[in-house]
């Protein structure tokens, strides 16, 4: 366990090294990035082997940081954080593998990438709200540059929109946290301190503080109607950044909601619970329907992320043990699946065909030209539909079970989202990879078009990255206990219990 903070330091050091290495050659930077990302992932796995699940945050580092304000550099982890740390390591490693073909300013790319990863590790490790916030913001800025610098389609707009939404969200969080902090007489930013300070305020103030902090974080989690940054940002981002954005960074928001907002004010949560749940449910269905209408494959995936994050938010809003554990599981699952989808679309397909328009892709027999990509996309799509056997299923199942216990109507509408997800995913699979197979042909009689189109074969790095992610989603799909055994004890912590109690009528 004590290894975990080193994920953060290693990634930060990797960022500097990659920057330096990039001055020598792109190759050096790549290998540095791969080694640090994989190294940090291995650290999380090593820590996981020695992890003893329990209700408390297990302190890793605790030192005074800004004594004048009671801020402590306090890193700690429990089952929830560990799940997400492992996910971060996985997504980062896969992200580096899928960025192997970045030739332009490689060192800077990986430096930004690893800075982002370091920020994400930091958020998941923080046990002090201010430290968490600092890492949260550290993760925002590299996103802008990754997208604006290495992105595609309308990248400056997408990057700016994403950065401003994120920053606006984090401003709300900061305002809420400072409010609570000031109310508490400035004792500190520990979660307990803030919760106590908030509890002393009037009900109206608590409601306002909760709204600031929760919706601030939820912006980054893509809550309807504050989700519009997500599709444009994801589409504009380079592959690895979309993978990390959809896969991990959106989880930062959800994690913040769960770790900071809920315990901060159970009173406020009780007030906002139903609106949040309805927004989440609307997000699930609405984003799914929008995805059904998209003509750009990456937009389909972008909206699907919003839809899936709706499940996470629903799980958090429902706030019983099942739903919350399902929400954390869904965070992991969506992290892997979204990564996989973006990898196929952004790297395997777009970098070769230079189009993501479904109409154009339809004209290419991609499943024959890129069979590996097709297979991975089908697996990812099927997993994304929430079909059983893949990680999305146990996650959505537990969320639905929890939601049913709290309010069957939420579960019912959310289940409709499962259907919509199937519709848009199948449509995407059908139009993108299996477009021009109206007449199957015997192997001998290739159409001339097949000869005219020739794409570079899928590289070893891509295959390795894809297989990692596929293995993860299948493993968790078949044995969700691996993660649930970490997550469930963590829900017993007093802070979360207070929040969960407030959410149960």
């Amino acid at each position, binding site marked *: 366990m004590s290894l975990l903070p080193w994920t953060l330091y290693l990634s930060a050091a990797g960022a500097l090294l990659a920057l330096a290495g990039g001055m020598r050659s792109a190759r050096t930077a790549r290998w540095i990035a791969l080694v640090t990302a994989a190294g940090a992932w291995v650290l999380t796995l090593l820590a996981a082997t020695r992890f003893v699940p329990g209700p408390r945050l297990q302190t890793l580092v605790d030192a005074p940081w800004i004594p004048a*304000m009671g801020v402590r550099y306090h890193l700690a982890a429990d089952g929830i954080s560990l799940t997400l740390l492992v996910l971060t390591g996985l997504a980062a490693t896969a992200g580096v593998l899928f960025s192997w073909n970045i030739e332009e300013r490689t060192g800077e790319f990986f430096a930004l990438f690893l800075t982002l990863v370091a920020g994400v590790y930091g958020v998941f490790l923080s046990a002090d709200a201010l430290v968490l916030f600092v890492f949260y913001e550290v993760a925002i800025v590299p996103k802008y540059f990754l997208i604006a610098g290495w992105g595609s389609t309308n990248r400056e707009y997408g990057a700016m929109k994403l950065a401003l939404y994120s920053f606006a969200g984090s401003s709300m969080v900061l*305002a809420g946290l400072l409010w609570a902090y*000031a109310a508490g007489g400035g004792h500190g930013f520990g979660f307990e301190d803030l919760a106590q300070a908030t509890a002393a305020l009037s009900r109206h103030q608590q409601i306002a503080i909760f709204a600031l902090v929760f919706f601030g974080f939820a912006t980054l989690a893509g809550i309807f109607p504050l989700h519009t940054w997500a599709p444009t940002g994801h589409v504009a981002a380079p592959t690895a950044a979309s993978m990390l954005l959809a896969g991990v960074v959106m989880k930062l928001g959800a994690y913040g909601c769960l770790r900071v907002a809920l315990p901060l004010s159970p009173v406020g949560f009780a007030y906002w619970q139903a609106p949040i749940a309805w927004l989440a449910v609307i997000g699930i269905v609405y984003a799914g329907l929008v995805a059904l209408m998209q003509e750009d494959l990456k937009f389909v995936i972008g909206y699907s992320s919003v839809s899936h994050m709706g499940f996470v938010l629903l799980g958090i809003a429902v706030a019983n043990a099942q739903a919350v554990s399902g929400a954390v599981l869904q965070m992991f699952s969506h992290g892997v699946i979204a990564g996989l989808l973006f990898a196929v679309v952004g790297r395997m397909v777009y970098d070769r065909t230079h189009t993501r328009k479904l109409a154009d892709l339809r004209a290419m027999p991609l499943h024959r030209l890129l069979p590996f990509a097709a297979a991975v996309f089908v697996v990812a799509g099927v997993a994304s539909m929430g079909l059983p056997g893949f990680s999305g299923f146990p996650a959505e199942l537990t969320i639905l079970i929890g939601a049913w216990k709290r309010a069957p109507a939420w579960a019912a509408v959310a289940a409709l989202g499962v259907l919509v997800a199937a519709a848009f995913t199948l449509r995407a699979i059908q139009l993108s990879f299996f477009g021009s197979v109206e007449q199957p042909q015997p192997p001998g009689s290739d159409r001339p078009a097949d000869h005219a189109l020739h794409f570079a074969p899928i590289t070893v790095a891509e295959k390795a990255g894809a297989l990692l992610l596929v293995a993860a989603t299948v493993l968790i799909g078949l044995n969700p206990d691996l993660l649930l055994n970490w997550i469930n004890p963590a829900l017993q912590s007093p802070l979360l219990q207070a929040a969960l109690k407030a959410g149960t009528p």
Partner: protein
Amino acid sequence: MNPDYAGLFLALKPETALVVGAVAVLGLDLSVFRRHAAAERLRLALWVASLAVLTAGVNVWLGPRGPAFGGVLMLDHLAVATRLGVLVLTLLTLGVARGAAVPHQPAEYVAVVLFAATGLMLMAAAQQLLLVFLSLELASLSLYVLAGFDRARPESAEAALKYFLFGGMASAFLLFGFSLIYGVTGSIELPRIAAQVSLQGADPLLMVALVMVLVAFGFKVAAAPFHLWAPDVYQGAPTPSAALIASASKLAGFTLFTRLLWPGFHAAVGNVAAPTFGPGWLPTVAVVSAASLLLGNLAALAQSSLRRLLAYSAIAHAGALLLGVMAAGRSGPAPLFYYASTYGLAAVGAFGVISAMERGGRCEYITDLAGLHRRSPLLAGCLAVFILSLAGIPPLAGFFGKFTVFAAALRLGGVAGPAGWLAILAIALSTVALYYYLIVLKQALIAAPAADARPIRVPRTTALTLVAAAGLIVWFGLDPAQLLGLF
């Protein structure tokens, strides 16, 4: 009262060092260095001046603490910290000047910088209205000269004239205010004024005096609606002058006025949240702060000139710093000092980058930054640190400045308190600010360079200066307790 001249000399050793340095710069330039080329003369002058600044710094560090010369000077933590901050910022300005275009009379330029620094040092410690005014005038006059130093460019002259006219008017207001204060309280020493004010309560005439002082204060720190000079001065003045105006002058100004307003007029605070908008300086400052935040951030959005953008961002920062002034009574001056000094570092740094770029061509518009990452990765990297710090992105110092100031403001009485709503407003506007800062960085770090753009050669001294400023920003960000713990 026996004037303690020995104590005075001890207390003013740093200022003495600066003045001696200035005289030495002028003298050596007239005698020994006369035959050298202008660039060489500048280099030598800068070395001498730097030596003087360092000597001053050592003297501040080792010098006496507490009131000096019968309370005319107050060498408390705030004063010492501000003086050190002014010296560091001056030193950085000198480093920036090394890489900037060579002025016509390099030695005079450097000497005036030292005189300005002397004035700012005195401002940091002044505790008597007369000295307050004198030090302010010394600093201001030096700065007017610095702003107009580039005689080749009409913009520089325009900047100096505007600065002078507005500054002169501010001085008049200040003097008038001081005279009223003296008339009402019968003293020019702040502790006595404070005692008298708390006895008398809020006298209407005193309020008039306070408004006068605040107007002057607004001019001095470029707070809206007294900001009109700032964009033109930032745009027209030679770059090192602008750097000094933006950094050290602001730090000293805020220290001076905090000392003036809090210990001096503590009783006349008034309360912005009270149902009756009671008389007092706090409500006035709150209004000025809100105006600065709004105007600075919104007007910055429309700028295409990099320096004007920095000017409006400075106005916005002044608004946030005023929050620190309001909160200083309860939370102490630490947040304010932290914010002002780290803001100064970032401002000096940003102007340093501009001056380095002007060596290799134009740096007028934001688009002139395009491709900086290719032309000079060092400048681009440093600029990223400065701008992100201005934007308040952790873990850079700018974030903790905002954070501590807002936290202090909120502790003044929660969201409903006199500064709480301003803190929320400022936090909301920081999102707006991020937009224009990112526009700058997009040009510098993302955009491709223009076709005729060449790599920029940065002199070693300037590079060192910029790296030092960036390093300090990162260091104070990672370990904010270093500065916050001073008080």
